């Protein structure tokens, strides 16, 4: 049984309990009726609401969720560029990140994913998308953090044994030297040059 099926079953049980309570409110004078009311009008709806929130949060980590906004389409196309030095493309095409969660793997603190401030930004994105219009060009709120790279590469042997990395490990860990903007891995999504790039089509 999938988590979604369990959630649907939970909602169905809650609805049945509420219908019974609404049809025969007199039962709430008995102890078992009070328990039934507590279950149907407090405990089960609270659990179902939390389960729905959790499922929505999990779904917001999916690549398709991020790319469902039109403005993100170029970033989606940058994942399939046929160039080895395009960082997101190399990660996506070689399964270094899960293709279903490609955005979230490298942007763990972005919009809905991060702390409370980030979640508020996530709602601001929806507001900007449908009401005020997004500000172009799209930029990250804060500089890209090396921790997004190091949570996978940080303990990898080929990373640690590379002298370029090992000689400045502390600077990389403290963000003093950026993985992306210090001239080493500086081709990220590069959406302004997408038109010139060849696209990779998986067979």
């Amino acid at each position: 049984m999938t988590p979604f099926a369990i959630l649907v079953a939970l909602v169905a049980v809650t609805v049945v309990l509420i219908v019974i309570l609404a049809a025969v409110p007199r039962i709430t004078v008995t102890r078992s009726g009070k328990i039934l009311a507590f279950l149907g009008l407090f405990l089960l709806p609270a659990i179902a609401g939390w389960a729905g929130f959790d499922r929505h949060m999990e779904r917001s980590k999916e690549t398709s969720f991020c790319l469902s906004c039109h403005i993100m389409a170029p970033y989606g196309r940058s994942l399939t560029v046929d160039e080895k030095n395009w960082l997101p493309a190399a990660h996506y095409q070689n399964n270094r990140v899960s293709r279903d969660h490609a955005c979230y793997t490298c942007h763990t603190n972005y919009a809905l994913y991060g702390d409370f401030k980030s979640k508020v930004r996530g709602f601001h994105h929806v507001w900007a998308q449908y009401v005020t219009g997004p500000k172009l060009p799209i930029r990250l709120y804060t500089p890209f953090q090396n921790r997004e790279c190091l949570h996978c590469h940080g303990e990898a042997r080929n990373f640690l044994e590379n002298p370029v990395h090992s000689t400045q490990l502390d600077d990389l860990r403290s963000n003093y030297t950026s993985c992306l903007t210090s001239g080493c891995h500086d081709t990220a999504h590069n959406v302004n040059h997408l038109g010139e790039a060849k696209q990779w089509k998986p067979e």
Partner: protein
Amino acid sequence: MEARMNSHPQPRIASRLRIAGVLVILGLLVEIFTLFWAHPLAFVAFIVLGCALIGLGILVYLWSLISVGEASGAAQSK
């Protein structure tokens, strides 16, 4: 007298329970509907509409509990 009073809940409390039930059911329906739609708007609809309705339903239920307590307290003091 007390037994008679307990076996007939006040109509207002019964109607509050019904209102709470309707709000919770509407909230749960919004929740299920939004879970079939993978889009940021679905998430917003779930939070703004679904969670609000469920929360409001729970609050109305809790309010009915408080009011039934107050009603029985007033009846006992009489």
